[in-house]
């Protein structure tokens, strides 16, 4: 159970991660900032509370495996890994720069990163393979795969959805960052996913729905996951661009790089949020 202190620390971590991402993306002239911000609380809870990983021993065989299938939102992953001590914070300054180790989509070879992603719809199959290996080895580690909602358009997301349920991979946890906006519009307008929870249920998954910006709720849900013979799907209801008022719910911030006044305004909002 999460104490008030824990919660305070998590809120602080989320604020720092948003600031890290803002500067990384701005310096790189890149974006996907909205996709990063919708999953900040999810990442913070995973790394601060849930995943059994060792920052100083990133390939520890018994570690939980984390696959960020929505690889375009890697700035936030890199930030949380750096803040957890997997690699130096100064690496973040090199994000997307010439000769950097940190590309604009998740790339393996960086401490704490299991696999490269970037093309949508690859992660869940890889995660299912990892979970199958753990199941056959009777290992205790768990596999967590974080997907975007847009990624649920991919047929290759639903192939492992069938597979994982059939093989009762109950140490596999898929988290859908359901921010309701994809590349060219809202999920509802582009390719409707509703009823999304029912779809995962129909595929044989144990489905949990959470407010993806409520650390206490995310933490409680993850902490209560039990092996029931079914893989788990956590549908996290989130807001694209969460944390900066003018980015929230705006498709534009899938693409737009915060600069000048926008950068200052965003930084100020995030800073003030900490003081409040």
């Amino acid at each position: 159970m999460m104490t008030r202190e824990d919660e305070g620390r998590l809120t602080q971590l989320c604020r720092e991660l948003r600031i890290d991402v803002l500067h990384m993306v701005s310096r790189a002239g890149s974006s996907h900032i909205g996709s990063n911000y919708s999953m900040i609380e999810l990442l913070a809870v995973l790394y601060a509370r849930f995943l059994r990983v060792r920052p100083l021993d990133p390939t520890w065989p018994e570690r939980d495996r984390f696959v960020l299938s929505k690889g375009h939102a890697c700035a936030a992953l890199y930030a949380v890994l750096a803040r957890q001590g997997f690699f130096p914070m100064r690496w973040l300054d090199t994000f997307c720069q010439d000769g950097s180790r940190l590309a604009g989509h998740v790339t393996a070879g960086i401490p704490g990163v299991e696999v490269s992603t970037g093309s949508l719809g690859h992660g869940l199959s890889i995660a299912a393979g990892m979970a199958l290996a753990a199941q056959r080895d009777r290992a205790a580690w768990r596999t967590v795969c974080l997907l975007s909602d847009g990624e649920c358009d991919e047929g290759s997301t639903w192939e492992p959805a069938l597979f994982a349920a059939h093989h009762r991979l109950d140490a596999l946890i898929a988290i859908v960052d359901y921010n309701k906006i994809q590349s060219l519009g809202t999920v509802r307008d582009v390719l409707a996913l509703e009823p999304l929870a029912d779809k995962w249920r129909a595929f044989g998954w144990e489905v949990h729905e959470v407010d993806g910006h409520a650390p206490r709720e995310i933490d409680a849900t993850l902490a209560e996951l039990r092996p029931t013979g079914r893989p788990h799907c956590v549908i996290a209801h989130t807001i694209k661009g969460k944390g900066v008022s003018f980015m929230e719910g705006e498709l534009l911030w899938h693409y737009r790089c915060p600069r000048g006044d926008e950068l200052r305004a965003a930084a100020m909002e995030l800073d003030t949020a900490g003081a409040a």
Partner: protein
Amino acid sequence: MRTAFIKALTACAQADPRITLVTGDLGFGVVTDFARDLPGQYVNAGVAEQNMTGLAAGLAHSGRIVVTYSIANFPTLRALEQIRNDICAPRANVKVVSVGGGFAYGPLGASHHATEDLAVMRALPGMTVIAPNDPEEARQVTAAALALDGPCYLRLGRAGEPAVHQGPVALTLGRALVARQGSDLTLVATGGMLHTAMHVATRLRDIGLSARVLSMHTVRPLDREALLAAARDTSALFTIEEHSVIGGLGSATAEVLLEADERPAVFMRFGIRESDDAAIGSQEFLRARAGLDVDSITNGVVECLERVRHARRQVSRARARGRVRSSGAAAER
């Protein structure tokens, strides 16, 4: 080849519990015994090749040696991006196996003809590309591919291919096997075409041409030394593959020869020049339509050599009449 493959795979898997076979719901009568005897090393991904390939990446990430198995283009083209991103990029220890290379599934139609797979697989980073020529080669390359740490593509024929090598062969990946010695020209064959090449060599012998025959079971890395030696020793080189002439063995050979100082005076690719999706028939029928039967190749070799000889004769006549100055080294050779 299919039988030789599954026997070799089963033997290796019995000795090494890391070896895992993932099928895309194909291999009736082929994978059945493996599945029964080694259930912990077998999984059926369903009719879902992208999932099969992603699963393989995840299993390999957890220390396994993984074989994905399906037929024709399903394990390759259908899951191409998973192979590129999830297997080749991290150099995952996954062996992509396809049964039914070329026209092996002839009558089933163009969807089942794997005629661009070598080109596509060869272009992927870190990929070793293997297309054995007979069952014995299939047996040996299976064990060799499993012993190699990294991604491989293994293109097999189907069943019932004749044994070509007489007596034992010691196969090394990336090293061509000399199936027959010869001094006038060289035939280089891959992916089940060695048998045809040997017959062509016999026919050429009957008309006084001595043909060396190479089994190029590994298309990548290609045996550069064997090709350059052939170019030096025999001066005419012909590649034979049941595959598009674009991007396969012929293209790979041309790349090696053109970049090297040793160039044969004559070079020609035998392969599929035009896709003929309307054609329906057996592997033998389709090979003949593509000009890949013994008659067509023998004639093609002879015509090509005559054309070059004729051109040379014209050049020397013209020179004798003083119309061409003697400068073309290539024409003189």
